[in-house]
């Protein structure tokens, strides 16, 4: 899950340099058919609906 980012109002003037914020969107892994293992399909609800 993405981290919760809280923004605080600056107490003084805006600093000239900023710490980089974590990327808003993580790099998701694209699911592939090869990843659909026997284990995935072995869930009871899937194998015998």
């Amino acid at each position, binding site marked *: *899950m993405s981290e919760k980012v809280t923004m605080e109002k600056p107490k003084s003037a805006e600093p000239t340099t900023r710490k980089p914020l974590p990327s808003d969107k993580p790099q998701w*892994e*694209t699911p592939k058919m090869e990843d659909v293992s026997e284990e*995935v*399909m*072995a869930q*009871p609800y899937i*194998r015998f*609906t």
Partner: protein
Amino acid sequence: MAHRIDSLGAPLLVTWQLTRDCDLACLHCCTDSAPGKRLRDELDAGEALRVAGEIAAAGVPYVMLAGGEPLVSPHFWAVAESLGAAGVTLKIETNGQKVDTAVAERLARLPIRSVQVSLDGDTEAVYARQRPGGTLERAHAACRALVAAGLPLEITFAPTRFNIHEAGAVIERSRSLGAFRFNTGRLMRIGTAARHWSKVEPDEAAYAAFRSLLAGESSHGDMELLYEPFTLQEAMRSSLGEPPATLLVLPNGWVKVSAALPHICADLRQRNFAQAWDDYRRAWYDATMASAIRSALEDEGRHAQANSWQMMSVTA
């Protein structure tokens, strides 16, 4: 703790119950399906096609179309062909009663990895008792038509007090029909099965003989036997450590968190598919889920509430 689902941009598999309607009234049904049991608020064709488009756009590699009986859904073909045209691999779960040569040949034009047919008996009497409204002859004819059309055939067998003594014959029949896999496990105490539990549940001696049969049958032949995890409880326990990267979509577009529990994490009428996947991942970090699973592990009878769906509040 990070889970596999946290790194995936979409589920590996979507199980989509297109309708609760069915042409049979099986005593062991886990979805409470039967003739005339279509939900009043099921997705219509336009909504289902929109969801199919979102599933494909999200990059889901594999979709299982189920029911009820998916072939009684008026938009089964539109959804299947839409997903297939978008390159999504399909699995179809059917009782086979509506599968003839023409249906099998139409299915064979889709990117199908498996068609799963239920064979809950090897004699007409046993099959008809467990699956009122159906005939074993039609189920066998469906299997032959699917194999003749070049489709991979998978068989599923739900053991009950009525049919467990025919398990060996069904395994042998599945081999002779050309199935590549035979699925079974302990009967799930959900839906219609839960309501008839005292009548349908096999006793422990029957289960012991059944497991012994499965162990012996696994060691020979080309057909794979899939029966582990044997119980729903085992699967639920492992899901606590690693939530499944699969999504279960109900006929009305609601998305379930766990098949054996009533919790709903998203409504595909309100949320698009990508948002629903995000809701699902978030749901597994909600203390409610861990508590509900632990509670269900303590008392199998609580699975009977699985179809009394309840919306969770997990939206960001």
